[in-house]
């Protein structure tokens, strides 16, 4: 009993240590002032991603530029579809998993040699999946409307990645913006099914759409 508790404690603190170390580099691009957790404090490599079509997560603000160069396009999933025929981004290009998981595939993880490695693989897969869901919604975002508001949606996916529930969690105050947020979410379906490692988890997310 004590051994089990100790090993759990050890695993927990190991994961916590990894998380804390990695989150140290997240400040400069944590972006949103909200104190909502940003899962990508776990994955600073995303910020360093060379990908310019999909902005670094959180999205890079189009800060004032003194050159009239073409703006990076709104994300149209710059990755080629190489895993399957559908339009999800190729995870193999993501560098977030470099220290944790074999880049070749998120589906087949090497069998964990010890609990610590397997749980870190699981957490990595969980983060990857969240990133995937977020990017899919981002890819379907509309162009600017010159309307201001923030609408928060709450949605749930089932084990196949299908959308089972989507609702306005906090309205923007404008029904059209709320409608647009829901439409963007529905356009992003179907989401890919979650990987085996995180099977059984509740896939309930909230996402805040900021129209400006």
């Amino acid at each position: 009993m004590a051994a089990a508790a100790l090993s759990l404690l050890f695993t927990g603190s190991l994961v916590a240590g990894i998380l804390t170390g990695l989150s140290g580099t997240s400040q400069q691009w944590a972006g949103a002032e909200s104190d909502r957790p940003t899962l990508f404090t776990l994955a600073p490599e995303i910020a360093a991603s060379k990908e310019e079509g999909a902005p670094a997560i959180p999205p890079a603000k189009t800060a004032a530029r003194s050159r009239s160069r073409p703006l990076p396009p709104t994300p149209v999933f710059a990755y080629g579809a190489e895993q399957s025929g559908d339009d999800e981004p190729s995870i193999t290009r993501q560098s977030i998993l470099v220290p944790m998981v074999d880049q070749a595939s998120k589906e087949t993880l090497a069998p964990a040699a010890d609990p610590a490695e397997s749980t870190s693989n699981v957490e990595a897969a969980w983060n990857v999946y969240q990133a995937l869901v977020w990017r899919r919604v981002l890819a379907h975002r509309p162009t600017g409307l010159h309307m201001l508001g923030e609408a928060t949606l709450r949605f749930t996916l089932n084990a196949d990645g299908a959308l089972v529930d989507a609702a306005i969690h906090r309205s923007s105050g404008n029904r059209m913006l709320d409608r647009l947020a829901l439409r963007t979410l529905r356009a992003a379906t179907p989401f890919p099914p979650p990987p085996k490692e995180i099977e059984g988890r509740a896939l309930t997310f909230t996402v805040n759409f900021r129209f400006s």
Partner: protein
Amino acid sequence: MQKVSTFRASRRRACLCFLSSVAPLGLSAPALAQEAIALPDIDIESAAGQDPVPAIVERIDRADLRARQTGSSDTARLLQSIPGVDGYSAGGFSTLPVIRGLEAQRVGITVDGVTITSACPNDMNPPLSYTDPQTIASIGVITGVSPVSLGGDSIGGIIAVETAPPQFARAGETLLTGEASAFYRSNGDGFGGALSLTLASDTLSLTYNGSYTQADNFEGGESLGTVRSSEFAKTDHSLNLAAQTNIGLFELKGGYHFSPYEGFPNQYMDMTVNKSWFVNGHYAGAFDWGDLDARAHYRKNDHEMNFLDDKGGTAGGGMPMNTQVRQAGYNVKADILLGGAGTLRIGNEFQHQWLNDYWPPVAGSLMMGPNPYINVNGAKRNRLGSFVEWEKTWGGITLIAGIRNDQVWMNTGDVAPYGTGMMQMADMMAAAAFNAAGHRRHNSNWSGSALLLYDLSELAKLELGYARKVRSPNIYERYSWGRGSMSSRMIGWFGDGNGYVGNLDLKPEKADTLSAALTLRDGGEEGWFFKVAPYYTHVTDYIDVVKLQNFTDMMGMPTAIVQLQFTNQDAEIYGLDVSGSVPLWSNDRFGKGGLSGKASWLRGRNKSDNAPLYHQMPLSGAVSLEHSLAGFETRIDLIWASGKDRVDPTRNEPRTAGYALLDAQVAYSWKAYRFTVAAENLFDKAYSAPLGGMSLGDYNATGVLRPVPGRGRSINIGFDVKF
């Protein structure tokens, strides 16, 4: 931790259970009661406008304009920083933009979603002359093939200007924001300023934009001296009321433009008054099935030409020429979301233009009287455009394909010369012939375009496009009729001093364009990029000119100017635009430095007479070094153009010499303030812009005909504050 799957009861599962509840150790606890994981925010910014294909649009945003508004009040001139964009010089704020060899009305230009029709035989008030860089929010330019949804009745690129987009406040708050700017330019003693002010609640927004600019004659470099007839003044004001409602965004914008004078160095006439006011209503809504965008507008132009002081003034009557234009139209567009099958875009627009152009008689003049010269008698040009376009994105590929039809109806009334005296014989006969012919014309123009955007890899993107675009002749190309020396020289926007005669039998121009672009990019906004974009355009029934006669002097000797008539010929233009930028250094001590550059080459040929097309920009480019440190931004530009040797013999086009100019600018930003000091043409180099035309104002005063000099050295200072 709920909803634990009971499929696997392994130890790993138990670990998972525990871990998922302790996992957010590096994160603060979710703000929600349930364990819904909060994804990062999705920002939808309106700054990018409503481009259907952001990837192919070159955008100049407010920050870019703020950095350059000190140097020029001519929006079309500021666009020349984009590879492939040049300009026919004209008055101080009326440069006619050229994109890849196709100019002015061949380019699809909109201001706040509305096309502004030309209202002058010399095209003195093109759409961009109604804008001021200080109050523009953003400009989108497409130099290559563009989707049919962005406009019809044009065969070249697209320029879309957006001013005063509405801003709203957060719920329960009031927003008061704005920007004020001012500038002074030593060359020509130019000065001006602008104010933008927005007052908004969370549902209503009121934006005011106002600007003023004026300058005296400018000076060319070194000993080229003053360029006569280049003074100008104008003021623009607009008010935009917007409402953010549950069914969408509503906007009502109205504005007024007044220019008391604008000298045109390369025209015989100057603009002595231009008054224009407009109303522009807009609705945009998003529904479950897609988006809807509707616009309706009306504009009234009153434009007068005569001689400013350098060309003799109006003490002796001058030569008054008045043009009135009324235009109205609507524009409806729907984006229908087809789910996995992409987006279907359908649209319809109607543009009505009425133009009346008459030249009042001058008391005591043998030639200009006793009757008014009726140049264009209440001409109407109506266009009904419809399009269907499909867009789909999958993997790294985006495909946009569409077809478009524009119905153009034109008609005009009978015309009359000044009188029936000996001096007016040529015009009398021309008027009789014109009035005997039918004037009603109808064209059904089919256009189509297909664009493919392909992500080759993380670093490389490829764009391929093919378009067939059709443009019907404008009112002056079809309905100008005067054959006399003086009356024909009043027509034309080419700045060459030649006389132009219209042609009732003109057919629409049909252009087939192939364009491609390869963009290599690494490192995001702080990284490097390189873009190479070749293109080829073949225009069937290109409206060029044939020579009718030489103009002879008193002795009967031919002069440098000729009389030409518009006619359909075939032309081809091909070229290459190259651009790139690379960051040089970035550290705390020395700030950030970068180098960027562009170069453009094109070759245009009239296939019917096998001669070069008129006003082709020779090989040209720019290299810029930028540096920023603390609040300082420094910029040094080297702008160069090689000599123009390919000239159109039909128009007696002059050659111009190559040149290189150095511009330098330092700006200091402190809080919301920005101070700019700039030197344009720092070494006061004497040069003539290749597309500058002939200096007719100087010719009038000195008898010497020379190309219009480019601007000599100017020290500019500017100030800008955002609040």
